[in-house]
C-alpha cells in the first residue's frame, strides 16, 4: 500500500515562483501523469517528490509520512530519468545492483533480485554489457530494471520516452502500461506529450505556469476541460476556438457565427446555461466533432448544427485527413474520414456536434 499526498506545495528559485501551491494526491496503485508545456514546473514537482529539490512551503506525504526534509534514499522511491542516467562505467548488472550495494543488501539476495527483474524485462542477455553498447530501447529497459529491482513505494518517471524515436516510443508506452498493470505500483509520470498522458494515466494533472489547471480522469480532461488552456493543450490537432455571440433563436439559446456565404448561421446550444452567462462566448469544438453534414447524421445524432465553410487546405495523414476551414472569419481544423474528404476551395456544409462543444468565458477563460 502506498499513497502520495501533496498539499499547497510551493517552490521558489530566488525571486522566481516555479510552483504556486500545488495540491495532488495519488491513491494506492494509481498512475498519475503530470503533463504541461516545458517550463510549467512539472519536472521540478517530480524532483521535489524525489527529494532532489528542497520544499519552499507546503507538504509532501508518502503513505501519510511527511517527507519534506527526508533524503532521497530514505523516501523509498525509484526514478527513471529522461537521459536514463545509467552509470556508464558499470555493466548492466552493476547498474541494477548499485542501489542494493549502497544499502548493503546481502549478495545472494541481490542475485535473486537481478534474476527476477532481468527475466521480467527480458534483459538477461544484456547483463554483462555496458550502457554504451545498448540501443535506446534497451537502455530504457535497463533504467526501468534499476527502478523495479528495489520494489519501492513510489515510481517516478521523468519524460522517459522523449529520447526515443517515434515508433519505439509507442512500443515502450505500451510496455510501461503493461508493466504498471502487472506491478500495480503507485506511479507519477512526467511528460509533455498529451497522448502519453491520455493513454497511460488513471488521472492527469495538467500543469501550466506553476499551477495545476485540472486534475481529473483522462476522459473528463478531454471532454470537459476546465479552461481554455487545458482544452487547447490536450488533443491534437488542438481544439478550435471561435468567438461567438450568445442569442435567442426560437426560444432556445444559440450562438451566432458568420457562414461562408456571408449570412449569419445560428448554432443551438445543447448545454444548460446559467442565467449570468456572458453574451460574448468562446465556442470550443474539437476537430473530430466537425463532420460533413448529411441528414442521416442529423437524425442519428441530436444537436448537429449546420453551417457552410470554405476549405482552405487539405492535409492527408493516411488514416484520416485534416482540413483547414474558414469559419466565422477564423481558420479551424476539421478531421475527416479519407473517403469523405472535402477538396481544396470547395464550400462544404458542415455538421457540428454541439453536444460535444465546450463554451468558455472569454475573460476568465473558464469552462461555462
Amino acid at each position, binding site marked *: 500500500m502506498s499513497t502520495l499526498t501533496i498539499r499547497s506545495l510551493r517552490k521558489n528559485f530566488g525571486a522566481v515562483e516555479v510552483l504556486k501551491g500545488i495540491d495532488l494526491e495519488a491513491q494506492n496503485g494509481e498512475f498519475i501523469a503530470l503533463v504541461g508545456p516545458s517550463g510549467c514546473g512539472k519536472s521540478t514537482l517530480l*524532483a521535489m517528490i*524525489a*527529494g*532532489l529539490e528542497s520544499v519552499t512551503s507546503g507538504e509532501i506525504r508518502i503513505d501519510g509520512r511527511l517527507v519534506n526534509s527526508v*533524503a*532521497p*534514499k530514505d523516501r523509498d*522511491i*525509484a*526514478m527513471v*530519468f*529522461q*537521459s536514463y*542516467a545509467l*552509470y*556508464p*562505467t*558499470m555493466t548492466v548488472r552493476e547498474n541494477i545492483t*548499485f*542501489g542494493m550495494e*549502497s*544499502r548493503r543488501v546481502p549478495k545472494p539476495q541481490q542475485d535473486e533480485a537481478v534474476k527476477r527483474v532481468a527475466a521480467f524485462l527480458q534483459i538477461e542477455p544484456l547483463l554483462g554489457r555496458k550502457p*554504451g553498447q545498448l540501443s535506446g530501447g534497451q537502455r530504457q529497459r535497463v533504467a526501468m530494471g*534499476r527502478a523495479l529491482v528495489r520494489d519501492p513505494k513510489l515510481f517516478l518517471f521523468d519524460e522517459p520516452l522523449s529520447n526515443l524515436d517515434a515508433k519505439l516510443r509507442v512500443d515502450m508506452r505500451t510496455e510501461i502500461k503493461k508493466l504498471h498493470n502487472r506491478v500495480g505500483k503507485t506511479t507519477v509520470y512526467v511528460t509533455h506529450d498529451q497522448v502519453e498522458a491520455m493513454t497511460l494515466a488513471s488521472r492527469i494533472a495538467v500543469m501550466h505556469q506553476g499551477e495545476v489547471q485540472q486534475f481529473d480522469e483522462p476522459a473528463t480532461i478531454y471532454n470537459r476541460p476546465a479552461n481554455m488552456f487545458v482544452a487547447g493543450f490536450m488533443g491534437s490537432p488542438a481544439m478550435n476556438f471561435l468567438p461567438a455571440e450568445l442569442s435567442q433563436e426560437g426560444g432556445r439559446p444559440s450562438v451566432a457565427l458568420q457562414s461562408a456565404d456571408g449570412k449569419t448561421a445560428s448554432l443551438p446550444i445543447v448545454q444548460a446555461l446559467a442565467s449570468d452567462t456572458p453574451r460574448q462566448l468562446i465556442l470550443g469544438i474539437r476537430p473530430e466533432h466537425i463532420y460533413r453534414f448529411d441528414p442521416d447524421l442529423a437524425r442519428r445524432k441530436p444537436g448537429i448544427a449546420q453551417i457552410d465553410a470554405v476549405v482552405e487546405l487539405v492535409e492527408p495523414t493516411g488514416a484520416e485527413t485534416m482540413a483547414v476551414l474558414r469559419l466565422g472569419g477564423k481558420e479551424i481544423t476539421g478531421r475527416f474520414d479519407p473517403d469523405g474528404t472535402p477538396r481544396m476551395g470547395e464550400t462544404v456544409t458542415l455538421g457540428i456536434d454541439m453536444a460535444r462543444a465546450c463554451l468558455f468565458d472569454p475573460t476568465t477563460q473558464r469552462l461555462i
Partner: protein
Amino acid sequence: MADAALDQSLDRRAATVAARRHFLTRFVIYGLLVIFAAIYLVPLLVVVLNSFRDQQEIARNGLISLPRSFRLDAWGQAWSTYCIGGTCEGMQRNFYNSLKMTIPATIISTAVGAMNGYILSKWRFRGSEALFTCMLLGVFIPGQISLMPWAFILGNLGLSNSVYGLVLIHVIQGISFTTLFCRNYYVSIPDDLIKAARIDGAGFWRIFRKIILPLSSPILIVTVIWQFTGIWNEYLFGVVFTSGQQQPITAALVALTASGTNVRAYDVMSAAVLIGALPPLLIYLFGGKYFVRGLTQGAIK
C-alpha cells in the same frame, strides 16, 4: 556522341589539373612543416650530439658541428662525479630531489583538484561560483608575486631550504589549475547520474569513488602530465628557496654552468641538461596521446 566524348576529355583534363594543384598544395604544406620541425628539433639534436662528443673535439671544431668522436663519459660524469661548487657528486642528488618534490606535489595537487572540481560542479552551494572565480585568479597570478609571502610562510613553518617546502608551494600553486581542469570536465558529466545515485542511496564519497572517478581518467592524465612537467621544470621557487644539496635539478643546472673552472665542459653540461629534461620528455612520450585526447574530450555520452 561527339559532345559526350568532348565532355569526357574535358573532364579528364580538369581532373589532372586538380590533381596537380592538389599535389602542389600538399608539397608546400609539408615543406613548411618540415622547416618548422627542424627549427624546433635542431637545438635538441645539437645538445644530444654534444653529450656524446669529446670535450677537446668540441673545443676544436666548435659547438655546432658533426661529431667526430663518440664517448659516454660525459653522462657518467654528469650523473655522479662532476664537481659543482666543491661537492663532486654530479646531478644525481638533485635529480632525486626533483623526483621527491614532483611526485608528491603532483599526486596531492591532482587529488585536491579532483575533489574541488567534484564539489564545485556537482555539489554546488551558495557562493560556490564566486569561490571558483577566486580560485581561477590563481591561474593568472604569476609566481613571482607570491615569492615574498612564501618566504614568510616557509620561514615560519621551518621549511625553508627543504624539498618539503617546495612540495607545499607546488601543491598550493597548482590547485587553481587542477581545480579548473577537473571542474570543467566534471561539468560535462550529466547531473542525472548524481541524482540517480542519490536515489540509489549513495552518498558524497561513494558517488565520487564509484561514478566520478571511473569517468575521470582522461582528465586525470591531463592534470598529472600538466602538473608533473610544470613542477619538474619550475625554476624560480627552487632557486630562491633552496640551495646546494637541497636544490631541484633545474636550479642545480644553473649552478653547474656557473661553477668555477675556466674550461666550459660542454659535453657534461649537455648530458646534465638532458638528464634534467628526460622525465618530462618520457611523460610526454608515453602520455602525449592521452594528453591530446583528454584535452579535446568533451561530454560523456
